[in-house]
């Protein structure tokens, strides 16, 4: 596989992200692969932003630590994310020359491109489009295709604005490229058109895939309160739920959002919300209500750096403890983790299925990196899991919280004659009437645990890549999975075989399957994107017989494959 990694950076509003998105789409439309990671500050303007793209002639799922090319639209605030866009001795850096790199940033290969001058000569101010044109030409794409994409992206602007952007694009495309740039871009083969019969390819983010998966599984009610980095998931739903005949309500806060979801779930309509750490913390009381009242509810947590407001725009996996333990009382529920951008579709759909089938709360953990990165993926099948609202048809007397063998009780939906009951967060007997009696409390606690503990989750609980037998195993979840797979490939190339086990079902933890699978592993390295080794502590507490080791690194910088293989080389990583 040949890949090229480039970053486009600029102050917020300079168009760095847009330029990156256009370039990825252009390259993908002619048959190429790639992904794009966004890094930006929470400010809308005057902050900093960068699009980091890796383009390839085969599927790409990680962004490497070193970049081959940096296009600096300007150097304002560059120092704030220099850690995430590290310039090495081999990095080619293009800038406009109107400002200079900040102290400490001393590129060896710095080329000045008079983009402002080129744009001005074309009677345009769109210097980012000058670079887009140059990159498009260097990658072997046509100017017409680039212009078609640009016009589609700017369709809401008036013609004068659109034409000015296109003139800058054309002027950039017509430039003779400096030799180092031309040579660098030429290392990436011009992609061949996709062969017939291959799966359809999509360009999508994890947030979009989670939203689509939820809708395709049957979600017809969404309550939304904006929070970075989950807002775009909710916004996508707002613009597409009509197609499914559903409703999205913008709630006044997260407390309202989760309670609206519970209300819709009580009505038998599959419902969800999406949020991030601070929002889920606010939802935790009512999440316990979903558990106690046995009402289906799905909460997608697109994790960001914490605690408190933390680093809102950057990725971390530090909400695991909140997802597992955030509720007061004994509140068994389901926690899933999406494994890739494409898998956000399946995992969200599975969450909807499980929430409705088991009448409980399902938390889906995603993270900013999965949620907001864009990737060329194979289109997910529409044969995903579906909502399973099972209405009651049972003999009298109807007992809403009947102590069944499976723990799943007959659910009556409002509108059904003869089965009326009041759902309750107060402890209750089988007949739903509030009861503080020890016998009822014990029975309902057992029942709510049993319905999850005894459920056959099938083979979806994790994905194993490679063989465990007498080999080290990397255990992970979420966006770390792609990094672990790349570390695995790098080690395989060096003659060392390791297995990667990405966990999709975190609670209830499938301890029997894990114990059996991992017994023959030589090392068990738990890799996670947080400071407190939350996943390692969790696995250790439930599988004390296994010798887990930990590699826990906080955000915002992504974990790199070399971090993982360095840890595996070490005699004792813990």
């Amino acid at each position: 596989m040949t890949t090229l990694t480039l970053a486009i950076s600029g102050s917020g509003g300079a168009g760095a992200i847009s330029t990156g998105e256009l370039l990825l789409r252009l390259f993908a439309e002619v048959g190429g692969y790639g992904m794009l990671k966004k890094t930006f500050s929470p400010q809308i303007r005057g902050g900093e932003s960068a699009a980091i793209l890796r383009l390839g002639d085969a599927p790409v799922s990680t962004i490497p630590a070193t970049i081959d090319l940096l296009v600096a639209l300007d150097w304002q605030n560059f120092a704030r994310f220099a850690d995430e866009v590290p310039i090495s001795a081999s990095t080619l850096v293009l800038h406009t020359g109107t400002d200079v790199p900040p102290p400490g940033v001393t590129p060896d290969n710095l080329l000045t491109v008079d983009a402002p001058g080129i744009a001005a000569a074309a009677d345009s101010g769109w210097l980012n489009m000058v670079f887009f044109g140059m990159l498009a030409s260097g990658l072997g794409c046509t100017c017409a295709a680039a212009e078609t994409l640009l016009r589609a992206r700017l369709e809401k602007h008036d013609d004068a604005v659109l034409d000015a952007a296109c003139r800058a694009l054309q002027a950039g495309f017509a430039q003779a490229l400096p030799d180092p740039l031309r040579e660098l871009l030429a290392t990436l083969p011009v992609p061949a058109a996709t062969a017939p019969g291959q799966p359809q390819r999509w360009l999508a983010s994890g947030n979009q895939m989670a939203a689509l998966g939820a809708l395709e599984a049957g979600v017809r009610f969404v309550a939304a309160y904006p929070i970075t980095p989950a807002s775009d998931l909710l916004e996508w739903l707002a613009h597409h739920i009509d197609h499914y005949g559903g409703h999205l309500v913008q709630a006044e806060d997260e407390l309202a959002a989760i309670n609206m979801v519970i209300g819709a779930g009580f009505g038998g309509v599959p419902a969800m919300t999406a949020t991030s750490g601070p929002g889920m913390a606010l939802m935790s009381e009512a999440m316990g209500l979903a558990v106690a009242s046995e009402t289906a509810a799905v909460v997608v947590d697109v994790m960001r750096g914490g605690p408190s407001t933390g680093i809102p725009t950057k990725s971390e996996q530090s909400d695991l403890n909140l997802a597992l333990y955030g509720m007061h009382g004994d509140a068994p529920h389901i926690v899933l983790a999406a494994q890739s951008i494409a898998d956000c579709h399946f995992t969200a759909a599975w969450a909807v299925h499980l929430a409705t089938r088991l009448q409980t709360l399902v938390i889906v953990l995603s993270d900013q990196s999965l949620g907001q990165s864009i990737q060329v993926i194979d289109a997910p099948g529409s044969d995903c899991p579906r909502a399973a609202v099972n209405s009651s048809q049972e003999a009298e007397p109807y007992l809403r919280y009947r102590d069944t063998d499976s723990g799943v009780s007959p659910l009556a939906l409002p509108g059904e004659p003869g089965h009326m009951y009041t759902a309750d967060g107060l402890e209750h007997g089988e007949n739903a009437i509030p009861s503080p009696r020890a016998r009822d409390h014990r029975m309902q606690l057992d029942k709510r645990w049993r319905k999850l503990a005894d459920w056959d989750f099938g083979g979806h609980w994790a994905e194993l890549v490679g063989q465990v037998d007498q080999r080290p195993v990397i255990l992970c979840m979420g966006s770390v999975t792609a990094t672990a797979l790349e570390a695995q490939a790098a080690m395989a190339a060096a003659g060392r075989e390791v297995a990667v086990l990405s966990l999709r079902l975190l609670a209830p933890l499938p301890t029997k399957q894990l114990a059996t699978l991992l017994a023959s592993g030589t090392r068990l390295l738990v890799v996670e994107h947080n400071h407190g080794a939350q996943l390692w502590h969790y696995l250790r507490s439930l599988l004390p017989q296994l010798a887990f080791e930990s590699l826990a690194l906080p955000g915002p910088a992504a974990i790199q494959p070399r971090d993982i293989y360095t840890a595996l080389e070490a005699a004792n990583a813990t």
Partner: protein
Amino acid sequence: MPLKARDYKSGIKPIWCPGCGHYSVLNAITKAMAAREVASHNTAIVSGIGCSSRLPAYVSSYGFHGVHGRALPLAAGLKVARPDLEVVAVGGDGDGFSIGGNHFLHACRRNVNIVYIAMDNEVYGMTKGQASPTSPESWLDGKLTPHGTEMRAFQPCAIALASGAGFIARGYSGDPNGLAQLIFEAMAFPGFAFIHVLSQCVTFVPEQTAWKQRVHPVEGTPATAAEAAALIHADDGFGKGILYRNPRPVWPRMHPQAGGGEDPRAGFAL
């Protein structure tokens, strides 16, 4: 044969103290349901936490007894998802105006077609006698506020009007027939309908038994916000009747048909 009010009772014995105003509110709700001939199984009563929030279990209908302060969003979610149901939210003054105060404002604004019955006894009864947002500033018996609340009492009807509620009424637990009529009208109203019910707590504020001398009917039914504001602000807080009725478009404004518009899958394809 038409059902009678007692047919809408579940038979579960309320936890309320003898003399509590909430018994009358329960009677008024079942009377209004009987008068509207609603099907019990197509009705859902939603509440939060507090003495009055125990009411759903006492009505023969579907119900949801949720967490403190969140009855209104839960009820809104249910109604938007299931517009075929008659949804009534009930609760007390602490639940609705303190911990749930923000939801009250936005429920008035959003105008989902539900009824909200707030049973106001100016005290937290279930936690045994603390001041509530509607307690008079001078009330010295609140267990957390021995010097009085030193805060102005919350004005539910004025706030509802300012927040956009299209139906605002005040009832009194000592007048269950009048209250039943208000609930009947609220159920018939298209949009968010708020009923402020003076419902006495004889245990923690026994002086509220004197309310029966203070309540009085209001004159007329304002149909403009300006007239309603004048009425509500001039009133002593004991005027009962419909204080405002002026329907406006309910949320959601439309129910989209499945299959309309572009298939979202098409937008991702390269």
